[in-house]
């Protein structure tokens, strides 16, 4: 939704809003966690291709960030998330999901281990209350850094060259590593695009200075400021999920049984039953064998995006729906994420069809397009993982 970044509407300006406003030609703002964030800056297409061919800068400060410090921080996090946090070494970042007692996913996010007893959790949904409950009785201190720590996502094939030109040495960082490049500037080799890329974390008031430093360094390396619409294309290509789109966070459901387990989201590998108790463990033990549906990555026949299409078994029985569907400009495939009821998702995955609606020149048409399950990401360039990273 396009909205005006008007403070009287209750929206707050992000830490680099001055810079974004000066660059914005589309004036296309949307509300992200109470901030006026850019849906686009120049043109979605141009921004997307900058992301995949050059580099892109995107403000991720509206993410929620929580610091957990103390002797039992690891124990608290291991009760919270489904994976074994103790396996994450200092200097590493891990993707994690966490559930309620019924095994339904509350949110997903990234877990940074800064030191043995010092952690940061970065996620989409506000989580302070839930964290405080999980930490009850433990020796841990929880701080909400959401409004004091800013984040900038620098993503794309020239992102390493840009950091290098800015005098920031990150050549040694492997995928999912993080390090303090300078005092008060942490850089992680992470992102939401499936490409080579970094996230920069700094005190809120430093964000403009860091933005300017990166912007100057990127002048000859194709750097562009981008908005969420471009990021969204890239994240679907990478096969990443968005809360509220590909799954409904269980704490944001009014209707019963709208929650989903990690198994139903294709995140079974994120659940470690061997690590001891964690929220939802008992429920997940029984849910493991009986997922009600499965979130599948599918290749859609033909060239029309299948966003919002219903999924049918043998073109007859309605068995699911597409949550995210686009024509991928880089993978050159018609790709989608689809929720499909289990017996059909697993027993006859080649007999699934999406009913795709198209509207062209004033006429609506419906067409059945065959779905082909795809393993892994739709686009996974080798440069995303190569270390030392490529410069372009």
């Amino acid at each position: 939704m396009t909205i005006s970044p008007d403070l009287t509407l209750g929206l707050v300006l992000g830490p680099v809003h001055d810079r974004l406003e000066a660059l914005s030609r589309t004036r296309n703002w949307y509300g992200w966690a109470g901030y006026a964030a850019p849906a686009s800056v120049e043109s979605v297409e141009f921004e997307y291709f900058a992301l995949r061919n050059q580099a892109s800068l995107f403000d991720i400060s509206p993410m929620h960030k929580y610091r957990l410090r103390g002797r039992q921080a690891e124990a608290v996090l291991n009760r919270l998330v489904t994976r074994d946090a103790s396996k994450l070494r200092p200097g590493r970042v891990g993707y994690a999901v966490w559930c309620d007692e019924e095994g339904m996913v509350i949110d997903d996010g990234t877990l940074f281990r800064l030191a043995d007893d010092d952690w940061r959790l970065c996620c989409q949904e506000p989580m302070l209350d839930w964290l405080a409950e999980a930490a009850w009785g433990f020796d841990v201190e929880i701080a909400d850094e959401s409004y004091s720590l800013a984040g900038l996502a620098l993503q794309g094939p020239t992102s390493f060259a840009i950091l290098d030109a800015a005098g920031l040495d990150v050549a040694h960082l492997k995928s999912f590593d993080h390090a303090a490049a300078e005092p008060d500037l942490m850089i992680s080799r992470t992102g939401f695009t499936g490409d080579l890329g970094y996230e920069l974390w700094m005190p809120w008031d430093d964000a403009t200075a860091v933005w300017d430093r990166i912007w100057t360094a990127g002048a000859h390396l194709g750097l562009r400021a981008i908005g969420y619409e471009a990021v969204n294309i890239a994240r679907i290509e990478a096969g990443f999920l968005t809360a509220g789109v590909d799954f409904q966070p269980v704490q944001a459901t009014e209707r019963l049984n709208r929650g989903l387990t990690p198994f139903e989201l294709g995140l079974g590998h994120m659940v470690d039953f061997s690590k001891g108790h964690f929220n939802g463990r008992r429920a997940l033990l029984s849910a493991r064998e009986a997922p009600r549906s499965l979130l599948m990555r599918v290749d859609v026949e033909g060239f029309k995006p299948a966003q919002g299409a219903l999924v049918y078994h043998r073109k007859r029985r309605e068995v699911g729906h597409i949550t995210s569907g686009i024509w991928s400009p880089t993978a050159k495939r018609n790709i989608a994420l689809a929720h499909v009821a289990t017996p059909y998702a697993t027993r006859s995955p080649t007999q699934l069809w999406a009913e795709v609606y198209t509207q062209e020149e004033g006429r609506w048409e419906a067409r059945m397009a065959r779905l082909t399950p795809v393993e892994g990401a739709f686009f996974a360039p080798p440069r995303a993982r190569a270390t030392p990273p490529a410069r372009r």
Partner: protein
Amino acid sequence: MTLKPDYDVIVAGAGHNGLTTAAYLARAGLQVLVVEKNDWIGGAAVSRELHPGWTYSNCSYVCSLLRREIVRDLDLPKYGLQVIPYEGGASFTRDGNYFAYYSDHDALRREMARYSPRDADAYQRYSQAIMRQCRFIRPFLLRDAPDPASLRPRDLGEMAYLVKKAHGLGARELGETLRFWTMSIGDFLNEHFENDLIKAHLAGSGIIGTGLGVYSPGTAYVLLHHYMGDIDGGIGAWGFARGGMGAISAALAASFETHGGTIHTGAGVAEILTQNGRVTGVALEDGKVFNAPVVASNMDIKRTILRHVDRDVLPEDYVRAVDRFKIRGSSAKLNIALDSLPQFPAAPDHASFLRGDMHTSESLPELERAYDDWKIGRWSEKPYIDMLIPSQIDPTMAPPGSHMMTVFVQYAPYDLAVGGTRSGENWDEAQRKAMAETVVNQIEIACPDIRNHILHMEVRSPAELEREVGLTEGNIFQGELTFDQLFFNRPIPGYSDYSTPLKGLYICGSSAHPGGGVMGAPGANAARNILRRETRAGRMKGYAA
């Protein structure tokens, strides 16, 4: 790479069409060998580092026609192909102005209105006429052209499809179709527009790569040929291959090799071997011999038939028809390494059209005069140029802050006239330098400080294209795209099914339907025919089937 003596199919030439044929056949389970005369692959879809740090797409330079069905079937993005669309373009004038071609329809209309309010409104109907014809043609690109004289079920089936499509068009549009295939781009534009500059800008696509002028019949079709591609469904949109056009060839080769194919470079075909009227293999220039019951030639039909097949095994009328095949070189190319981005004083700062295709021709008569020069064996005194700076959006083409400029030049003859004789031999260093001087003068109309930025420049006349790539007379389409040699007449009437009178010999390059451009369609169509006619594998799988 281990070479074996025997293969199911040998592909002669590792151009993008040869690699496409090879990749489809390897996927169908055949043992396929591709042989290439150069030490590198790609034919005219190559990326070459001829100045350290700069990559030149030194033949073909932009991408649109490559069929999305082929990209998807052969999984080319998985093998490294990334296509980057560019926006718009512009024509600059000697009096310091410009006409910008925006991809946004309304922005374009507003820009046209600066020159002619009437033309701005006419563009809607012009564009509709073009797009309707493109919609009509596109489905035929990955189908065989039916032979109307044949009663084979397949030809009858294709003919029925053609009739059905033509009937669907209706009488008025079908009339338009015939006009399009036969009229000149100049006449067509004059029917729609009044402004010289707008007409000159739009006419360029009608003459690129062809030995015809803007008033020559057939050039309206050449324009269509350049509009019938797409990028991500945007019909007529163009882009760059990340890393240069060689990225397309590299991805095709990787797809091919992943499915068990073998590529042998550094030795071209000396002779296509035959026995009892059937192909038995190839003998290479380095003396190696490989056996196969099927040879697909990616070389143009003239080169294939007249230079590499024993004339005794072919019917004389076929050989004469091949000899008559029109394949005239008409284009040259400058590839330039720039130390930084040159100034375009007429354009507003950061104009998006500077990232697109730029030209400096101002009227149809000026373009026709450029053609007149070509007819008498000279390069144009005021050539039509199609120049782009891909390094603005592709960081792999030049070091940071530096740029690479590609300048396509129309017209330059193959058989240059010098001292009363016309010959490709006349293209020596001095002539190439003199032509480059003419072209740089033309670039200066848009970009007066260009000379201060040039670090290195490669100059390619049609003669280099022939010598290096193997294209006869340096014709970029492997044969003129005129109605007399299109569709079921391409390359030779009666042989539009990619076959030749010699059993087992197929033509898989742009000499065959649907013709030139980095499209891959002839290669995919040839593979489909080879699978059906020569193997047990039968039907080809995929979107191009």
